[in-house]
């Protein structure tokens, strides 16, 4: 059995992740930040440690400017819906996931009588998914407030030049929001050096945590007074007031947090830090290049993207001529025990960009836990299917 669906969610999780979650449920169990008994404090410490570890991974200087939520989608919604007002202009790319595109399209439709609506410019990437920073700069208008980019396409894995765009944003006094769903824990990210103002991350992919964990890191240039919370409610702080606290992270973390999940994320993120993102990246680059080369060597297989593993994540999209992606996926699972994802991957504009809309692609998403032997086995399976399709 080969698990190649890590771009959707990683499996297996690093050793100790499940154990930390079981430990929390059995031995800690209390609500953090509410009561002051020993277990409530132990729970609060787990939450804090997770904040600190994940913050360290992204070189965030202040762990209290890291807001946890249930996933990267929620984090992107918080950033976009919290920050953008009618009349604001935002620039995004043509390889965005629907987690970015749908909230933007919704904001675009919400019109105010005087100030109009949020305006969205989608900068086209090349058919390989490459974004030219100069195209972003050319799209800047006087009313541009934000540039919102996927760090890497979830379809073809192509990395976007976020640091270069970050430099442009600083120069033009714009904020940069980055969706790190596909890169957090698998590709080095330094929110300070890369000049990322808002980093949305998920816990359940390369950070090794469970589903239901994610969040948003807010840089020093971000004024939290300008970002409306998505949800308001109990925070355990300022209980005497009926209005939402105005300080981080409480103002965006209403309701009981997912400490059982964050206990797992804490261990997953520690595992990534111990191995180092650079070492994980080197392993994945080697696997991805072997996969790309092997697929390209099969006649009738088309591989999408830059074909250079250094320019992308370890997610590789391809098609077999004469066989629909859905059939390839079914047969890989049924006949070879290879699990992957086929279709549009929640990113229709990305598929339009690479020319695979509406049929989509077959996507192999590799992780730190995959091996070269698994890649070789999968290549034999794809070759066999490709021969049959001819």
């Amino acid at each position: 059995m080969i698990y190649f669906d890590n771009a959707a969610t990683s499996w297996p999780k690093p050793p100790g992740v499940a154990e930390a979650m079981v430990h929390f449920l059995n031995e800690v169990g209390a609500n953090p930040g509410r009561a002051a008994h020993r277990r409530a404090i132990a729970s609060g410490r787990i939450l804090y440690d997770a904040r600190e570890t994940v913050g360290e991974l992204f070189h965030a200087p202040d762990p209290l400017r890291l807001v946890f939520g249930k996933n990267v989608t929620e984090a992107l919604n918080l950033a976009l819906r919290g920050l953008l007002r009618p009349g604001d202009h935002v620039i995004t790319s043509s390889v965005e996931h629907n987690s970015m595109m749908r909230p933007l399209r919704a904001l675009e439709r919400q019109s105010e009588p005087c100030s109009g609506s949020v305006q969205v410019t989608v900068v086209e990437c090349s058919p390989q998914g490459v974004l030219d920073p100069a195209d972003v700069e050319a799209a800047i208008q006087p009313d541009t407030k934000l540039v919102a980019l996927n760090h890497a396409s979830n379809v073809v894995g192509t990395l976007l030049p976020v640091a270069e765009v970050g430099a442009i944003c600083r120069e033009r006094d714009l904020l940069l929001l980055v969706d790190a769903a596909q890169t957090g824990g698998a590709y080095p990210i330094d929110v300070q050096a890369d000049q990322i103002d808002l980093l949305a991350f998920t816990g359940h992919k390369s950070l090794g945590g469970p589903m239901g964990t994610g969040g948003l890191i807010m840089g020093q240039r971000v004024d939290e007074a300008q970002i409306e919370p998505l949800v308001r409610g109990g925070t355990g702080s300022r209980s005497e007031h009926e209005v939402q606290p105005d300080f981080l992270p409480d103002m965006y973390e209403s309701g009981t947090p997912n400490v059982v999940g964050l206990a797992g994320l804490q261990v997953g993120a520690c595992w990534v830090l111990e191995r180092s993102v650079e070492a994980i990246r080197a392993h994945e680059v080697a696997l991805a290049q072997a996969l790309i080369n092997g697929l390209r060597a099969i006649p009738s297989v088309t591989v999408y993207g830059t074909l250079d593993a250094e320019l992308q994540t370890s997610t590789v999209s391809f098609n077999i001529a004469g066989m629909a992606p859905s059939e390839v996926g079914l047969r890989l699972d049924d006949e070879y025990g290879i699990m992957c994802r086929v279709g549009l991957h929640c990113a229709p504009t990305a598929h339009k960009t690479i020319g695979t809309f509406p049929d989509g692609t077959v996507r192999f998403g590799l992780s730190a836990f995959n091996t070269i032997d698994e890649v070789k086995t999968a290549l034999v399976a794809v070759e066999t299917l490709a021969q049959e399709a001819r």
Partner: protein
Amino acid sequence: MTPGEYTVVLFHSTSYAIRAEKVLHKAGIPSKMIPVPRHLSSDCGVCVRIERADREAARQTLEAAGVELEDVHDLADCSNP
């Protein structure tokens, strides 16, 4: 100064208190997290209790580490005679 004379440091929320506890521990200043005394705040959270003798050292350590405090209060002597 007799043992049992305490000062409490109040924060915006538990996350700040935990951060303060870590910073104080690193600086070798003993501390304990306790519920916020009712007469100081109606909040349901925790605060950090330190020896009164450590008050200024703690304040400086926390300020140097950039941990935002809400308030610092000396507690009445709660040692058992």
